[in-house]
């Protein structure tokens, strides 16, 4: 099926990558200068590293710059990282955080404008234009979801219904009566809306006019995408963002749904090795790091997200040249280092899903024998893996071990254990047991 791609700012979104690098270099220099002159913490870190703003000549010099951590935003709460006078700040957005102080970010008029443009591009990526009716069911408030989507849709000239979150019956009534065509909310709420709509006996094909959804603010999977698309009869696109950088719209999916285009003329994405902190090439999984290059209120230099993902630079069918980021597959906190190799449980999980069709329950046991690290992957056997012959089971084990070796680069011992024999913990399953005395 031929897809029609709407592109809000083709000049930037389809830019020649060499030209993009030149623009990024220029904007990075300006941002570093601005931040060095106005943010004491950044100046101190630059001085400690012996790096001067003049040392940053091109975008490749970004590796010379110090990192920023989430804890810096807490420590400098609320205004310590502002690069602009408080009088220039026109908006505060933030996230509550689970513990202690919240995180807030200050936006100048320019920053709100940049953010709005990024969301406008994101909504257009899902096919939204002037004639659309956009129902925003993200919460409005400090959280960037509601206002972000609102501003972006307004910029496109669409009709916005600022529903905010909750009251599902009313959401569905408005959706039906006003004929909403674009839905903005979290993927889990989209699923819930879809299920409720079906339970009410409504047929989205006949009773609703939805054509696409832009879903973000939490990680989701391809299976969830399929389910939402079936439930609501729409195209479901992913959107990524974080308050520290701007909010939703930092990256977004086009209708090709092959990863999220990063708005690289506003933010520079990098993938680094979370241990060595060295920059990694495209198509290598690692920690995602962002540098804002157009923000003036609270610029972020090499902000470590601690999210694990991969960047792809090959040209997208939609015509955009902006790099795409794959789904977030984990957090750096989950990472284990085995014989000097960074191993993410999510990589092992992907191998098991490939072998088995679904993810079986598994645990990684790391140990050190004769000063060599060992990795044992304990997998709960499923009936699909089992057969009456020893040879078949050995084959399954060798296949898993071979795939892990090629995907992760580490030799693993595979143990198949009976179903429900591995420990299960409340909430997030504990996947790693590290017995090494380090």
């Amino acid at each position, binding site marked *: 099926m031929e897809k029609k791609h709407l592109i809000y700012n083709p000049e930037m979104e389809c830019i020649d990558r060499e030209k993009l690098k030149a623009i990024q270099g220029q904007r990075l220099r300006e941002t570093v200068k601005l931040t060095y002159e106005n943010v004491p913490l950044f100046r101190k870190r630059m001085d400690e590293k012996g790096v001067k703003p003049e040392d940053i000549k091109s975008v490749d010099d970004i590796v010379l710059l110090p990192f920023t951590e989430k804890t810096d935003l807490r420590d400098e709460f609320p205004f310590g990282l502002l690069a602009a006078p408080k009088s220039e700040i026109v908006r505060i957005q933030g996230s509550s955080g689970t513990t202690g102080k919240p995180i807030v970010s200050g936006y100048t008029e320019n920053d709100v404008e940049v953010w709005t443009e990024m969301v406008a591009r994101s909504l257009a990526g899902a096919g939204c234009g002037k004639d659309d009716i956009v129902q925003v069911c993200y919460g409005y408030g400090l959280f960037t979801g509601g206002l972000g989507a609102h501003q972006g849709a307004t910029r496109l000239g669409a009709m916005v219904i600022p529903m905010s979150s909750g009251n599902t019956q009313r959401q569905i009534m408005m959706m039906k009566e006003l004929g909403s065509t674009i839905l903005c909310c979290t993927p889990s709420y989209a699923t819930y809306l879809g299920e409720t709509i079906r339970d009410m006996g409504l047929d989205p094909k006949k009773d609703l006019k939805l054509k696409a959804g832009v879903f973000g603010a939490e990680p989701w999977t391809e299976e969830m995408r399929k389910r939402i698309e079936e439930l609501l009869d729409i195209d479901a696109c992913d959107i990524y963002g974080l308050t520290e950088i701007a909010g939703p719209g930092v990256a977004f999916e086009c209708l090709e749904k092959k990863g999220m285009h990063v708005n690289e003329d506003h933010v520079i994405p990098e993938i680094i090795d979370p241990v060595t902190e060295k920059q990694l090439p495209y198509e290598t999984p690692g920690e995602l790091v962002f540098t804002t290059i157009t923000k003036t209120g609270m610029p972020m230099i090499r902000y470590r997200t601690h999210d694990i993902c991969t960047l792809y630079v090959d040209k997208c069918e939609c015509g955009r040249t902006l790099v795409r980021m794959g789904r977030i597959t984990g957090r750096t906190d989950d990472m284990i280092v085995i014989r000097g190799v960074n191993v993410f449980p999510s990589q092992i999980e992907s191998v098991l899903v490939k072998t088995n069709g679904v993810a079986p329950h598994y645990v990684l046991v790391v140990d050190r024998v004769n000063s060599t690290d060992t990795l044992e992957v304990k997998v709960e056997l*499923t*009936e699909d893996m*089992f*057969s*009456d*012959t020893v040879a078949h*089971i050995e084959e399954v084990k060798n296949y898993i071990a071979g795939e892990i070796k090629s995907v992760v680069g580490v030799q693993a011992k595979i143990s*198949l254990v*009976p*179903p429900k024999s591995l420990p299960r913990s409340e909430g997030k399953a504990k996947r790693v047991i590290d017995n090494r005395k380090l």
Partner: protein
Amino acid sequence: MFVKQISIYLENVKGSLREITQLLGDNNIDLKALSIADTMSFGIVRCIVAEEQIEKTMEILREHGNIAKVNNVICVCIPDKPSGLSKVLTLIEDAGISIEYTYSFYKNTGDNAVLIIRPSEKRRTVAVLSENGIQMLNQAEIDKI
């Protein structure tokens, strides 16, 4: 011409074999034949029960957290005299079929020993054996043993 067999995965053979046989015994499952394949890291128990007990057996095994599967094997009558077994095995091997495993029933039928064979190619094995006049038993006949 196939007979149904139940295979059960054992994480470690010692202990768990006794548990499995006891579990089945306590539930009045009559094991007509049983074998164990044992490797360094796991084992497989294979057994034959009457067809009417297969579903119940699988339920009991699953309820107790076992991985088990039903598959087809071939049951052959071997004349209870020297070279009876080797004649059958030779026929199969000469046809270029490999044998994954064999084991026998506890009881004989008349003068015949009953052997279970799991060849690499089940249909061709049945053809080869019947061409050579080797008697095979079907599920109904097995149930009576």
